[in-house]
């Protein structure tokens, strides 16, 4: 009797989970399906036939490759610099005593509350005034500065590592940065990958800073796809929806890859650090 009841419970559980999964997957799956549809076909739930031509149009009707290149530069700069720099700063917080340390830690945490535009717009005004817009310099500086949340994640993780590791390396003549690089970073791979994946996903999808700091010819893909003109070349009033869908799929694919690349570590990295807030 009890067994029967619990079996029924499991069946209901699976039905609920599967239905929810179908709902969550639906918008992306349907967009993908529609992107394979004939460009002139009337919309239907399943594509009448499979065409890759929409993808070809998506990359040729607008300067897609230029936008993609800009996305790669912005994300590349951000991921590499933020991942390294946040670790260096967090190492300072996790391992060194100094007057003012807790003040600066609270300061870092409270910067997470500042809406980014409050600082970015004056920064933009300043960069514009000294003629430094339309370069990738802002992302270089932001990358060097690290990211408050990532500094926090690294710090939490470093705090769980035994101090004896550092001390024995120091006796062997290792410098502080050497200890970070050779001892702590290699055993912190889950958190390094978590930070790299998260900073990739947010920089890849960013559209506000590229809009402000770059001319439209240098926009990254996300910025360019808000209001890109996928229309018939000889009739701009006809919007090619399946082509827009293809472009949305192309913009999404790298974030999915990043997730699968980091999935194993993402879970581990969050389990060990995300809970001690």
């Amino acid at each position, binding site marked *: 009797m009890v067994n029967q009841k619990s079996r029924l419970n499991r069946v209901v559980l699976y039905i609920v989970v599967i239905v929810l999964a179908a709902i969550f997957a639906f*918008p992306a799956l*349907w967009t993908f399906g529609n992107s394979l549809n004939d460009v002139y076909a009337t919309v239907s739930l399943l594509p009448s036939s499979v065409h890759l031509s929409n993808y070809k149009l998506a990359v040729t009707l607008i300067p897609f490759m230029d936008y993609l290149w800009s996305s790669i530069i912005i994300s590349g700069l951000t991921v590499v610099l933020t991942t390294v720099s946040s670790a260096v*700063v967090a190492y300072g917080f996790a391992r060194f005593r100094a007057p003012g340390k807790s003040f600066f830690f609270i300061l870092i945490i409270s910067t997470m509350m500042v809406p980014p535009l409050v600082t970015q717009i*004056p920064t933009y005004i300043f960069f514009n005034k000294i003629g430094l817009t339309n370069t990738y310099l802002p992302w270089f500086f932001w990358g060097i*500065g690290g990211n408050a949340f990532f500094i926090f994640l690294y710090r939490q993780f470093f705090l769980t590592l035994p101090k004896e590791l550092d001390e024995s390396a120091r006796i062997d003549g290792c410098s502080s940065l050497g200890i970070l690089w050779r001892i702590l970073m290699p055993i912190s791979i889950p958190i390094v990958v978590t930070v790299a994946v998260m900073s990739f996903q947010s920089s890849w999808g960013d559209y506000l800073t590229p809009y402000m700091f770059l001319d439209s010819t240098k926009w990254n893909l*996300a910025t360019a796809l*808000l*209001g890109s003109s996928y229309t018939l070349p000889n009739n701009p009033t006809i919007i090619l929806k399946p082509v827009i869908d293809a472009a949305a799929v192309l913009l999404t694919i790298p974030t999915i890859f990043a997730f699968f690349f980091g999935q194993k570590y993402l879970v581990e990295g969050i*389990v060990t650090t*995300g809970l001690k807030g």
Partner: protein
Amino acid sequence: MQKMSPSKKREALSFYLLISPWLLVFFALGLLPLLWGLYLACTNYTGFNFNQLHWVGLSNFSTVFHDDDAISSLFRTIILSIVIVPLSTAIGFLLAVLLNNKIKGLPFFRTVFYLPSVFPVIAAGLMWQVMYGRQDGVINIILGYLGIHPINWMGYNLAQTSLVLMMLWGSGGALMIYLAGLKNVPQSLYESAAIDGAGSFQKFWKITIPLTTPVIFYNVIMGIIGSLQMFAQPMLLTPGASWNTVPLQPIYLYVVNAWIQIFTNNRYSYGLALLWVLFIVVFILSLIVFFTSRYWVYYESGEE
């Protein structure tokens, strides 16, 4: 002041050297722009008149509070946040609870629920345009099969609902953290509760939820901060969305208004005042959640 020993001095110096990348960038591209923005908000800056700036005091700020666009968009945004943040927290948490039942195919389901939250906002918005289209939107096509007339999802009456649904699609963002939190609840607690005769609902309410409140707390704070700054989502829920789009009134949100004031109307100083007001609102709301947290967030004794 106590004199520091040389080794302590060296340690302090190392600390400041290590945090210097953050510290320098924080001063140059964080604190300075923040304060300079506050200064510009007290001038007549329009984007071109650097040579004729004058100090106008707090008049831009008092305009904010007399500007119907600003105040009504502020309340609209706060109300939408009050709807979105608890709902998405609850959905994310319930998804985690469902998946925590030793379910087969956990990695698959986890991926399906989590991925939408990391999709680029612009791509997610384009996908929901496909969902919400009036003549050729998927939802209306399905409703058509059921004999229901097309619904104007992006119209005046439903735009807010559509925005909320679209935001809730990202509810899985905290799924991993919740799953980890649920795994962290000691099994022994459930066992002793079972001995005391607690049912599964009681166990959920008295053990599972209290022990995961620290994680919920973090996500509520971040959810509030994020949802008060919604920008691209309302733009994308406007047919023919582009950078010059003005969303319909029900989804004309606070940051959208600030953005339009600055980049469309060249009211730089006024726009900066708007953003500073947002900053203060975010700060106050976070403080409220923070100070109430002692009543509902459970911390293990001995831990801060």
